[in-house]
């Protein structure tokens, strides 16, 4: 119901922006959110998400407070009719797959068509390949993720909720994009999400 993002009365605060986490069951949506929100990862302490839930977090982006309302959804197919209703209010969506689970990667196209059907056309979208800490179990190569992301023109990065790799970056990048969109300062250079992600992203291998 909130429509376009806009400035609130407070000149250094961007009004509430809603971000949705989507992707197959078990890809790590809740873990990613908890890592970002609380900086914690407790192995084996997460329960499967039923329905939909959200947490708020305020990020400081270049001196401006951006309030994110992050929606965590159940990945299982039958819950989608419940979560569809929330797509249209999402300013951004983080679409996750699990690099140790081929099926979750193969389903990305189905998720994308769902997003195109239900979300706002101008919603910010980013593809994340999660669980890259599990190097031995990896079945989806980084190149595969990159290729798919390029095909759909979506920024991409690999993450690990366990090690924390790129988790803050994913949310910060989204927050920056949303901030720039809502403030539109005349003298500011246009923010390029793709370039920013490419520049800031860290690999899971040697360069960490």
């Amino acid at each position, binding site marked *: *119901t909130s429509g376009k993002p806009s400035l609130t009365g407070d000149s250094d605060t961007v009004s*509430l922006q809603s971000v949705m986490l989507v992707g197959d*069951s*078990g890809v790590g949506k809740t873990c990613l959110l908890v890592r970002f929100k609380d900086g914690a990862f407790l192995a*084996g*302490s*997460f*329960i*499967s*998400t*039923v*329905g*939909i839930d*959200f947490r*708020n977090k305020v990020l400081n982006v270049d001196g401006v407070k951006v309030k994110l*309302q992050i929606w965590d959804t*159940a990945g*299982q197919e*039958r*819950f*989608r*009719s*419940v979560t*569809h*209703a929330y797509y249209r209010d999402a300013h951004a969506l983080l679409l996750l797959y699990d690099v140790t689970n081929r*099926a979750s990667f193969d389903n990305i196209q189905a998720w994308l068509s769902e997003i195109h059907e239900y979300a706002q056309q101008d919603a910010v979208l980013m593809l994340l390949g999660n669980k890259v800490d599990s190097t031995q179990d990896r079945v989806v190569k980084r190149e595969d993720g990159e290729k798919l992301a390029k095909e759909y023109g979506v920024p991409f990065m690999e993450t690990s909720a366990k090690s924390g790799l790129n988790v803050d970056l994913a949310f910060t990048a989204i927050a920056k994009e949303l901030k720039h969109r809502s403030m539109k300062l005349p003298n500011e250079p246009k923010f390029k999400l793709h370039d920013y992600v490419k520049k800031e992203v860290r690999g899971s291998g040697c360069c960490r």
Partner: protein
Amino acid sequence: RVDPYGFERPEDFDYMSYEEFFSRYMVVLTRRAIKWSKLLKRNNGVQKSVKVKRYIRKGIPNEHRALIWMIVSGAQANMEQNAGYYNKLLEGEKNDMLVEAIKTDMNRTFPDNVQFRKTADPCLQQTLYNVLVAYGHHNKTVGYCQVSKDIIKKTLFLFQGMNFLAGYLILITKNEEESFWLLDALIGRILPDYYSPAMMGLKTDQEVLGELVRMKVPAVAELMDRHGVMWTLVVSRWFICLFIDILPVETVLRIWDCLFYEGSKIIFRVALTLIKQHQAFILEATNFPDICDKFKQITRGTFVTECHTFMQKIFTEPGSLSMATINKLRETCRAKLVAQGSTNNI
């Protein structure tokens, strides 16, 4: 640090006030245990009757819980009429996708319960796996029982949330075949298609609750409307998980006692009691996230921990709530949802 069911108590668990409550509750439990053992010594002790209903509302002692749930839900009768059926399901051919879905949730079902840890001995994960695998394949079979035949004809049938229901049943019965038949009683008969692919029963009941709140606690309904909060957001887990992980374990079990005997109406009674009791508190909310937060907070604290008083409240606080009213609301809400095309999403 661990409660009698194996759940680890949170770091900030208030032992003082819990002890204070429990010492009072022990008196009730003892009195009920004596009454129940007398009742069960008589023949036909648990035929449905006004007396048994009253007894159940006052709580089934844990040592009899599995037995009474089995009898009053009809699970016992179904199990006896279909001897060997459960094992046949386990021995039969398995669907890979279903097995995969079940495995995904294995480590995510009660990680805070020591009995469900991989390292536990005996480990209830295998039991849970069996019950879910059997249940997932069970509904493909047509014709073993009237109700299931009508509701489910095709496809695999597993659903996030079911793992929690099955987990609780296993903790109480300590028997996988009984857990299976109780799960069947809950999902196949007691709950109106909450767990069907389109979740129409669930969506309907969420709207029904909304209407009941409009009738009984109008200010809260108005608040929800004003801020555009959909009921599904704040209550879907109440319905899907039947208050597991929402309310304290002992309170959930007391609710389930009534649920198995009296049916899904109990869910509305609990929900309405929570909302009505905390009306003033909920109305303090001034925005969307605030409202959601209030709905989380009203499920915590002494009001819900004191399960015996709470269960008395659910039969008085919401006022009269006839099955006729609920059925009528279910009909109109379902029709509205169908008109909105909510079945087409799947």
